[in-house]
């Protein structure tokens, strides 16, 4: 057996995708997240149907309201699916199983990234299916804006890729998969949310926030003003609150930025990282 017997990178990549996807789909975290999404979706839809109230003024507004949550779900699911992607090779014995094989690390990384995307996007599709069921129930199938739905799904796919790229990057800094997942959730979800909140009293647009960019997948159903300024009086002082909504192209650009930068940094760190433990 020598170098010429090795399959090309593309074949090895596909092998990693299949095996890693198999691994993800069999984990309790995948099953747990699937149950979580189904529970939330069924509960929401159940209440809406029981009270004969969609909570929206039309199908566009309904879809906007439902898909708005995708950013939140996407961040949580992405953190769980990708938060240990690199850490597992340095905090568990898995690295000693795969890193001694004649496979480029970038191939391993991209294989895992693709598998994590497929698993995460599958969960997003389940959510979309539930949303579609609700929209059909209240407004009829003929009223569904299919092209907008496809565009929204495309943006969501991009958002999932961006979240996973960030999760992969964070996972490159830690040895413990558990810590890596927790930190990813804390940074992507809580930290960005807090920063968004703090910035709302300034006039700074949170263009660096992935959560902010994630709104784009809902905005295809119903446009929102880019900036809404509200003046409030508190304790005799006037406070200006700036509520920003990204342009769709802007959201997409932020996501692409995350994908390129985070994935490139992940690849560099993964390549350089040594198995010292």
């Amino acid at each position, binding site marked *: *057996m020598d*170098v010429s*017997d090795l399959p090309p990178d593309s074949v090895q990549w596909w092998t990693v995708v299949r*095996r890693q996807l198999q691994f993800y789909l069999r984990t309790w975290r995948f099953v747990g997240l699937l149950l979580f999404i189904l529970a939330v979706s069924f509960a929401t839809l159940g209440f809406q149907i029981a009270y004969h109230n969609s909570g929206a003024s039309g199908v566009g507004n309904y879809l906007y309201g439902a898909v708005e949550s995708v950013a939140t779900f996407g961040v949580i699911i992405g953190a769980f699916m990708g938060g240990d992607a690199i850490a597992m090779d340095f905090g568990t014995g898995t690295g000693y*199983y795969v890193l*001694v094989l004649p496979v480029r690390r970038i191939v391993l990384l991209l294989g895992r990234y693709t598998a994590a995307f497929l698993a995460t996007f599958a969960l997003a599709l389940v959510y979309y299916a539930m949303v579609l069921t609700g929209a059909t129930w209240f407004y009829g199938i003929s009223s569904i804006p299919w092209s907008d739905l496809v565009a929204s799904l495309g943006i969501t796919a991009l958002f999932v890729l961006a979240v996973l790229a960030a999760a992969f990057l964070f996972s490159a800094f830690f040895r413990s998969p558990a810590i890596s997942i927790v930190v990813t959730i804390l940074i992507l979800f809580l930290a960005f949310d807090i920063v968004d909140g703090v910035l709302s009293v300034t006039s700074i647009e949170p263009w660096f926030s992935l959560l902010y960019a994630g709104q784009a997948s809902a905005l295809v159903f119903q446009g929102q003003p880019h900036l809404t300024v509200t003046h409030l009086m508190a304790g005799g002082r006037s406070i200006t609150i700036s509520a920003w909504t990204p342009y769709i192209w802007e959201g997409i650009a932020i996501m692409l930025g995350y994908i390129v930068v985070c994935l490139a940094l992940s690849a560099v760190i993964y390549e350089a990282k040594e*198995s010292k433990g």
Partner: protein
Amino acid sequence: MSSPSIEVQDLTKRFSLGRVALEGASFRFEGPGAVGYLGPNGAGKTTTLKLLTGLLRPTRGTARINDIGVTQSRRQALADVGAIIESPEPYPSQTVAEAIEMVGELRGGRRGHLAEDLGELNTQLDLPPLDQRCGRLSKGQRQRVSIAASLIRDPRVIILDEPTNGLDPKERILIRNLLIDLKKDHLILMSSHLMQEVTEICDQVIFLNQGRVVLKDTVENVSTRFQSRAVDVEFAEPVHIDRIKAIGPLVQDVSVVGVRRYRITFDGSTTARAEILRGLVGLGPVIAYQSASLVLEDAYLAVMQDDGTNAIGA
């Protein structure tokens, strides 16, 4: 196809805070055979094997497998290598068959052929049920699965870091026999703490101490140089210790190690060993007469104690 080879030149690894794990190691082994890599904990054995498999990058020097630089072309260098470093763990949700097949696929194996290879490895290694999840395997079972994965597609260079670690005696014998068979047409580099195992499997040895190669030679040459300085004798009936001491000045010391067993210390020479046996036979029926310890063990202790001053061929 040329002979399989492993070569390190001036290989050095320093970790943060200047801790030296390996300093200027150089050796080359070519062709089929087995090389034992020995040294106390922290000597740099695993570090060397990690450098050879690209898990670590050298601070200085080179590691080459089949004349391909590991640092420069890791993928190509590892194309013909099966390795077990530390305690590898397949994905816990994979079955035994899936875990081994994945490695085979990444090495370019086709499904049909891999099934055949897997069947053969199953027979050789007495693997756990192939449909069992790896997450439910015992340490020994997992180690056998890792060994099977390292051997699938038959790589010619095999690098093993304490391969029988965590195995029970039956499993150890299984692996030992497999390695003895494999070394006929593979190049094996294995680290181990078990002198018995190395004596039985390896043709050549490297002793490592405090990050430096202190001895490098064939097992045969080491045996000649480091002769055992103690023998154990067992009589059919008890013999008084003073009678053994009275054999002559060749006997330096005698101690009781069992009801009818005694340990005799001497200068280690073959002549003295034969003379002492002659004297013992005169004291009563001798039913066993053998070195008190393994030659490699004696060599190891001597080399480690002298920190290389006894070293040969290093």
